[in-house]
């Protein structure tokens, strides 16, 4: 006989009760900000279901543990009942939908075990009750507020106006059970039309030629496929898992690529054939050597579609997923750094400009940042490099890139799977969350996505992943597993499928620990429930592996065994649900030839800033989200945890000036530095995708060198985020982008070591399908010996000489062009000779101590870079006279292009530096001096273009994003 109790924790002893922040935010968002005296309260709710015998323990659990602080008190009620509220209070109760991850409930269960509860028979669910005074009955305001407190994809809520009694749906109710037996899907004798219908209705995202190939395969086998077999094929053949577009055949004008990536980006890596590249393009992340013993892995992933629907969970699980890539690299790398890059529509986008069914970019950004923050911080991994970009083209489809750097020994880089090895699943339990993520990510976002795809969104549990990390590192260090990989998109089907690619496997699906009963075998196989890893363990090591995970409080289950005959057999309660030939699974996909249209450079339309003065343009650029300080975001991330950081995202005299990248001391001994940076030339994409790729590589490497890295050991990660690549013009952009990226990487001698593409980033608005702007994010990682040599981008002293290095800038592709509605034209071109010469010289100058500060010129051009350098100077200023540089003053001040830096050099060093620059053929302009008067002055063509107090520019630059996270 079980009993149900509701424990409500009321924070009324706290002078400044915290959970109210969410409520205040919601009230502000719906346009009626909280008033001074208005009652606002957020009560934590714990629903407990437990055996009668444990009922006596509830009161002390509630007081000592659930409240457990003088700041709050607990009220215990029988059944699903809440303490009475004041007559004048309205209320909103928000709880997770059934089947959605509720991490807090697991921790409460843990504490209950300590208190003597019979954990096996107890269940816990949690909720929040918000109480609000001063809301009139019948006002739909309450619903609007609730809509901001919960997200319908994962939450359910009830609103109660004043005086109304609270009744909520049973928090313990379960999902209906799924069919348990083998289900066959007839394909052998059906029409093409029917094949298309099967793919669409099953959410398989397979096209007709793929379905036809499957049909022929089963015709040759003389039987029908089972549902689980079709699902497995769909997962394995999804764009997400096998990158069929970028590794497919493409005809591009006169060019023909058998395998686009292999012949562009991979080719450079293969030709360079560098001995310190330990693992490239074959594992969950690329690995480069630090020295002979230690290496670092790096991988960047996207989680765009889940983040569009449920930004907190989507971004959080994006971080969780890429961390698992690190854990699944070699025999497991230890995560030491996270990176994050986002693209949103501008935060001032008008509500009526949003496509139906999409969240406002401000809400998206807040949710995404919170998701990244909570996952990274709870895992104890510093998030210390990234960028945020804004462009109206992301209004229906934001981009969320999450990167992870790991540390591992050389002996742990390689993995093998031997027949007979046990398939060991560790981590979180499998539930109905995240079904069809791999196939969903390859589909268009529509207004109905919220409804049809809710299963594809998950809530992460970083605590679980931290425990998995702790256990896995011990297993690795004791050499107890032969291979490990993560359960990402496709869940067990992808993880076991990949590991058993050459062996096959027997998988007993009923052995997977489940979150709740009722999951069918297909669901178990393809569920993308988070925080799970799969290990290949020699049976002799099983006991020790189980013991280690038990000590770390991580569940561990033997799902089956790898075979030797190449058959993948899926068994559920002694019935064979599916049997697949891994050869067909991994190599049976039909080759398709795509035809692309090489893009043309459009004629230039000049940007039109109207009557704005250059001073005003600079102010607008500094306030633009693309340039504005990201400090309100970065401060929310723990970017110092692990105690390795030597260059932070913000430094300078007031710790609020932007650096070009970050650096850390991987072994905590000062012998090496790992430098990480990124480049994303968003504006260039609309103008020239080939140059966009070159500029992104160049920017990432310029940032890397400015942050203390070296070209001698630098590697790159590519992340494509593209629209509808079935459109030949859009496909043409991606081909040009690949060629450009390869050309730039080759010029610099820096290999790409891993990458990921996210295609089909389209959304439907007003009945029209729209693609996002083309994006290539390039992330760079470099290993430099010795202590960090880096001057930083902050001005150090007055009377230094400011030197502009690099070739002429151009308006096409610049933020200035994008912001003031210009278009087209020829951008400043990447220079394959000058680029490497410059970066090598700069590295030499930095190590020789010749530079006082250095900053790369990117969004906003020279004027913005000069201002940013002054922001870190603690009261210093700058006087620049550009002469008649670049002929046009707009171009000189705001134009952009590759290879450009502004550096600060002492009077003693300047002559030698300029002479060296001349010897090397590096364009160098003595542009002015640093001053101690706290003003930024820039002259061009004899005219004073900019004259402003640095601190007033700085406050403009700082406040844009602050508005999204107001401090109280």
């Amino acid at each position, binding site marked *: 006989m079980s009993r149900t109790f509701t424990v409500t924790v009321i924070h009324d002893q706290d002078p400044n009760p*915290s959970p109210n922040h969410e409520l205040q935010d919601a009230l502000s968002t719906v346009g009626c900000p909280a008033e001074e005296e208005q009652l606002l309260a957020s009560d934590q709710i714990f629903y407990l279901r437990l055996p009668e015998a444990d009922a006596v323990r509830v009161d002390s659990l509630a007081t000592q543990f659930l409240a457990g602080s003088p*700041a709050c008190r607990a009220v215990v009620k029988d059944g699903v009942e809440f303490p009475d509220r004041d007559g004048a209070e309205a209320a909103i109760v928000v709880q997770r939908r059934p089947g959605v991850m509720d991490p807090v409930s697991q921790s*409460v269960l843990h504490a209950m075990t300590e208190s003597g509860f019979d954990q096996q028979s107890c269940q816990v669910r949690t909720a929040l009750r918000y109480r609000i005074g001063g809301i009139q009955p019948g006002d739909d305001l309450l619903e609007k507020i609730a809509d901001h407190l919960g997200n319908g994809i994962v939450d359910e809520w009830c609103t109660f106006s004043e005086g109304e009694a609270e009744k909520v749906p049973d928090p313990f109710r379960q999902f209906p059970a799924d069919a348990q037996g083998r289900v066959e899907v007839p394909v052998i004798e059906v029409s093409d039309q029917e094949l298309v219908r099967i793919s669409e209705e099953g959410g398989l995202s397979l096209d007709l030629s793929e379905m036809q190939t499957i049909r022929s395969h089963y015709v040759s086998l003389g039987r029908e496929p089972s549902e689980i077999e079709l699902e497995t094929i769909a997962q394995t053949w999804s764009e997400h898992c096998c990158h069929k577009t970028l590794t497919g055949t493409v005809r591009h004008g006169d060019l023909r690529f058998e395998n686009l990536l292999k012949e562009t980006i991979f080719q450079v890596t293969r030709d360079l054939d560098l001995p310190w590249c330990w693992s490239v393009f074959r594992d969950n992340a690329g690995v480069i050597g630090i020295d002979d013993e230690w290496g670092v892995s790096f991988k960047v992933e996207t989680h765009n579609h889940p983040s569009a629907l449920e930004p907190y969970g989507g971004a959080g699980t994006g971080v969780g997923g890429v961390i698992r890539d690190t854990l699944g690299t070699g025999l497991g790398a230890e995560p030491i750094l996270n990176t994050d890059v986002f693209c949103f529509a501008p935060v001032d986008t008008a509500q009526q400009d949003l496509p139906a069914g999409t969240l406002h970019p401000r809400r998206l950004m807040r949710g995404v940042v919170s998701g990244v923050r909570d996952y990274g911080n*709870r895992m104890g991994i510093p998030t210390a490099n990234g960028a945020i970009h804004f462009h109206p083209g992301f209004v229906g489809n934001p981009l969320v890139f999450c990167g992870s750097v790991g540390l591992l020994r050389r002996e742990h880089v390689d993995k093998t799977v031997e027949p007979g090895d046990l398939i060991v699943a560790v981590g979180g339990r499998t539930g109905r969350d995240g079904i069809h993520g791999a196939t969903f990510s390859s589909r268009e976002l529509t207004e109905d996505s919220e409804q049809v795809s809710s299963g594809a969104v998950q809530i992460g549990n*970083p605590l679980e992943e*931290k425990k998995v990390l702790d256990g896995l590192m011990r297993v690795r260090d004791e050499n107890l597993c032969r291979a490990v990989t993560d359960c990402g998109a496709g869940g067990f089907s992808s993880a076991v499928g990949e590991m058993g690619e050459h062996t096959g496997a027997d998988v007993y699906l009923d052995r997977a620990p489940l979150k709740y009963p009722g999951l069918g075998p297909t669901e178990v196989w393809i569920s993308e429930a988070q925080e799970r890893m799969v290990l290949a363990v020699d049976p002799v090591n099983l006991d020790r592996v189980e013991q280690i995970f038990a000590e770390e409080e991580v569940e561990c289950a033997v799902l089956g065994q790898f075979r030797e005959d190449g058959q993948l057999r899926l068994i559920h309660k002694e019935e064979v649900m599916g049997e697949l030939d891994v050869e067909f699974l991994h190599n049976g996909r039909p080759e398709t030839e795509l035809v692309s249209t090489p893009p043309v450079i459009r004629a230039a339309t000049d940007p039109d800033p109207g009557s704005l003065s250059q001073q005003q343009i600079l102010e607008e650029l500094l306030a633009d989200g693309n340039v504005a300080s990201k400090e309100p975001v970065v401060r929310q991330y723990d970017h110092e945890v692990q105690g390795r950081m030597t260059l932070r995202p*913000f430094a300078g*005299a007031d710790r609020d000036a932007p650096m070009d990248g970050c650096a850390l001391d991987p072994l905590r001994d000062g012998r090496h530095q790992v430098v990480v940076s990124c480049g994303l030339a968003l504006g260039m994409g609309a103008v020239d995708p080939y140059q966009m790729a070159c500029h992104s590589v160049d920017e990432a490497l310029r940032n890397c060198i400015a942050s203390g890295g070296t070209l001698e050991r630098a590697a790159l990660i590519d992340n494509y985020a593209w629209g509808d690549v079935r459109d030949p013009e859009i496909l043409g952009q991606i081909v040009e982008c690949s060629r450009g990226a390869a050309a730039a990487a080759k010029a610099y001698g820096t290999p790409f070591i891993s990458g990921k593409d996210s295609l089909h980033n389209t959304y439907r608005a007003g009945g029209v399908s729209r693609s996002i702007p083309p994006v290539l994010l390039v992330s760079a990682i470099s290993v430099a010996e010795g202590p960090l040599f880096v001057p930083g981008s902050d001005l150090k002293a007055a009377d230094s000489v400011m030197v502009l290095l690099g070739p002429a800038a151009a308006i096409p592709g610049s933020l200035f062009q994008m912001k003031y509605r210009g278009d087209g034209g020829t951008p400043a071109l990447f220079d394959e000779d000058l680029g490497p010469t410059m970066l090598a010289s700069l590295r030499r100058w930095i190590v020789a101590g010749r530079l006082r500060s250095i900053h790369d010129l990117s969004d906003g051009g020279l004027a913005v870079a000069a201002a940013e350098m002054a922001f870190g100077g603690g009261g210093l200023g700058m006087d620049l006279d550009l002469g008649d540089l670049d002929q046009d003053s707009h171009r000189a001040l705001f134009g952009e292009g590759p290879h450009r830096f502004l550096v600060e050099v002492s009077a003693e060093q300047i002559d030698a530096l300029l002479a060296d620059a001349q010897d090397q053929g590096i364009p160098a302009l003595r542009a002015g001096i640093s001053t101690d008067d706290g003003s930024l002055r820039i002259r061009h063509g004899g005219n004073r273009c900019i004259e402003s107090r640095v601190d007033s520019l700085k406050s403009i630059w700082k406040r844009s994003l602050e508005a999204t996270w107001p401090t109280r």
Partner: protein
Amino acid sequence: MADSMKDAMKEDRPLALVLRSAGTNCDKETVHALELAGARVELIHVNALSENPEILKEAGLVAFPGGFTFGDDVASGAVLAHIIEKRLRPMLQEFVDGGGLVIGICNGFQVLVRLGLLPGVVGNGALLWNRSGRFEDRWVHLEASRVDCPWFTPGQKYFIPVAHAEGRFEWFPDASEESFPSSQIAFRYRDADGGDPQYPDDPNGSHQAIAGILSEDGNVLGMMPHPERFVRPEHHPFWMRFRGDGSIPDEKDLPVPLGLEIFQGAIDYLRSRHGDLVGEGGVR
């Protein structure tokens, strides 16, 4: 080897335990800091300590590192505090009463407060949500109070990072309305000039701008800032500005890693207490 020699060696490197559990995440750098300070360090899981609490008798110091133990679910540090309360409370109390040193950093501080080991007998404390309503990672100026304890020189000024969402110290006195006893204040947030801080110099809005507190005897220290994150000069957020002429500083110009001094103080104190110390020969 003569017994006295063995003792001397033990005394040279006192044993420090760093306690971890699910969700602890500043354990490795805390181990590193204590090792740099000269301790022999054992990183131990709370489950392992529960099975072998005897090891406390050998230790001179127990560190509760930062992190998000059990996800900070329910409240920060709540689940770990509950586990310790149910399994280890008497042994830990004995360790503290015997003069053993305990340091709780960030989440570790939250655990000690939740357990009532801090502030101890003078009413209840709580570490609550930052007034800013958000997680904050930033470097802050601290001033140590003018009390004698093993951890710091009275009045010493520090510059070290905080990184937390729940660090606002509130005090709930038992009966009187007196202010929090100044002898139990370890550190207070200051502005860059040493004056009373406003946000963000005071990152969380604590009672009396308190950043860390001591037990009555001074052997238990809890603090929100992270001294283990400033144990090398390059950990300083703008170490590159330390050279007068603006170029990259040489080793001799680099800032002193002030975080390490706190661990150093504790380990030096343990060394100086030979023969009269928990774990050092077992004499008390």
